[in-house]
């Protein structure tokens, strides 16, 4: 049975009289007209590109320290942003630090988006006992504030990149599942789902063709609103010493190791935090922009 491409458009006979506008075209048009959102997107894109291409930007070696060049102030010749407590170039470390920080800050939400959406859509569409089991389990995780849960799991598992990813993903699955379930139950009750079921389509086909397209954008917008928290938490785990291990450059970890320098060069030591702050602020504003462009209500 040919079950591919339900939404695919057949080749048009004559040109349509009115140009139909799909949902995503409208979203795109609204986003482009929103200067703050575009600015945030540009800043984030720059940070991500800089992180990806860090080794090719002609920066200093982020791991190479120097005992005599420790804690050079901002604007030093050859070290425009100074050096850290081991004499490593701050600019290089900040740019390289984006790689791990952004990865651990964004990846858990991506993973949780897929897992949580799947769980929530199944719970919302199937209902009954399946719903009860999934949602009651989710309730238990809601008994932990997110910071506590992340630190608890990371603390038990120990430091490490994979452990941070695991603990943060676990933290963000329950909220996404809850939103996905609520949205799906709402869509499940609509007549077009009944009409689709009346064709004899399997539950999987109805979910794929009729449910996913209508629930994914609110879930997606909600997930984007979690990225900022996830960034802060990921860097926070490293700041506490249960995330990325030294000597890897990572903003939270850098903030931690530079604390010893706050009496020597206070503003230098605050730099990694500025990076976390700017990223998190842009993520929040971008999420707000997406929410209004996609007409998702709270």
């Amino acid at each position, binding site marked *: 049975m040919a079950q591919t491409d339900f939404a695919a458009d057949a080749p048009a006979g004559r040109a349509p009289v009115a140009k139909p506008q799909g949902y995503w075209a409208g979203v795109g048009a609204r986003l482009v007209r929103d200067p703050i959102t575009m600015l945030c997107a540009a800043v984030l894109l720059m940070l991500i590109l800089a992180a990806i291409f860090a080794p090719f930007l002609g920066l200093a070696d982020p791991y190479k320290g120097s005992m005599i060049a420790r804690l050079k102030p901002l604007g030093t010749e050859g070290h425009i942003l100074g050096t850290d407590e081991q004499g490593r170039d701050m600019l290089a470390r900040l740019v390289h630090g984006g790689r791990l920080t952004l990865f651990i800050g964004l990846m858990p939400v991506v993973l949780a988006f897929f897992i949580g959406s799947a769980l929530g859509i199944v719970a919302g569409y199937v209902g009954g006992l399946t719903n009860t089991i999934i949602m*009651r*389990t989710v*309730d*238990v*995780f809601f*008994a*932990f*504030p*997110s*910071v*506590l849960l992340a*630190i*608890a*799991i990371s*603390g*038990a*598992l*120990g430091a490490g990149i994979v452990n941070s990813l695991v603990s943060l993903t676990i933290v963000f699955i329950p909220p996404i599942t809850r939103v996905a379930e609520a949205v799906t139950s709402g869509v499940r009750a609509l007549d077009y789902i009944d009409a689709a079921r009346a064709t004899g389509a399997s539950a999987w086909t109805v979910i794929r063709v009729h449910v996913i397209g209508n629930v994914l954008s609110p879930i997606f917008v909600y997930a984007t609103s979690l990225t*900022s928290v996830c960034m*802060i938490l990921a*860097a*926070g785990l490293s*700041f*506490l*010493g*249960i995330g990325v291990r030294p000597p890897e450059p990572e903003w939270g970890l850098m*903030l931690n190791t530079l*604390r010893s320098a*706050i*009496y020597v060069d*206070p*503003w230098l*030591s*605050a730099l*990694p*935090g*500025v990076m*976390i*702050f700017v990223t*998190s*602020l842009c*993520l*929040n*504003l971008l999420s*707000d922009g997406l929410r209004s462009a996609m007409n998702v209500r*709270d």
Partner: protein
Amino acid sequence: MLTYLVRRLILVLPVAFGVSVICFLLVQIAPGDPLTAIMPVDATAEEQAVMRAAYGLDKPLPVQYAIWIGNLLQGDMGKSIATGRPVASEVFGAVQNSLLLAVSAAIIAFPIGTALGFLAGYFRDTWADRAVTALSITGVSVPNYWLGIVLVIIFSVNLGWLPSMGAGPGGSQSWAWDWAHMRHLILPAVTLAVVPIGIVAHTVRALAGDILTMDFVQALYAKGMSRFDVLRHVARNAAATALSVMGLQLGYLLGGSILIEAVFNWPGSGFLLSNAIFQRDLPLLQGTILVLALFFVTMNLIVDVAQAAIDPRIQRT
């Protein structure tokens, strides 16, 4: 109302059970043998087996859980591996300090957040609204552990006005209501208050804005009611939601103060937790998290019941 209360209490039990299971499993997912932390490196296999039996570690997991929960219900949370003292006394001492910090932060955050949010909601789409909105987005976006460091740089390092570490002079662990101690509270409490200010302001802004445009408010004006009286009606309508948000925030403050406590060396539950993590003191880790989570569950319960008591629209059966 009583039925609702009882029903809500019964609903808490499975959640509390789930919380205890997760806390129990935390120790199980920890890599390595829990014995290595307490046994000398040169312990013989025989000695290890004796210890294993003594701690019940040779029994199947469900039995271990039953023993653990049985002790827990008698108030026995085990002994700290690092200090050898009962976990319960360590945790409750630390939680008191954390609670002090969380409540102080709430006392700072709730009035400021409410005032800002109401201002923005009332003067919607004016410069005041935009300023508050920008402020609240900044508040929820700022990594508060970094903000703590910045405040230390400004007020401790540069100005020298306030201490940057601990809960009292000379690393004092015991709290006292005097200026020498309270000076230590200011910076961490302010730092901790920033996120809830943003969240409360955001919530109150939305509530006030929505309610002011509702039909019944138009009707109140139409009836000739004064601006002040209308505001009173609006405040009453917004109170239930605003209170529930604040109640939850108090729970988050207690659980979320860990990073701030690390920045300021505040001797609270977060400080205890990070010590437990670094010394691989798993019973202490388990106990601290259990107490914090149960506190959060209790906060949720209180918020739900209080909201039902205030808001007649919530079904109380």
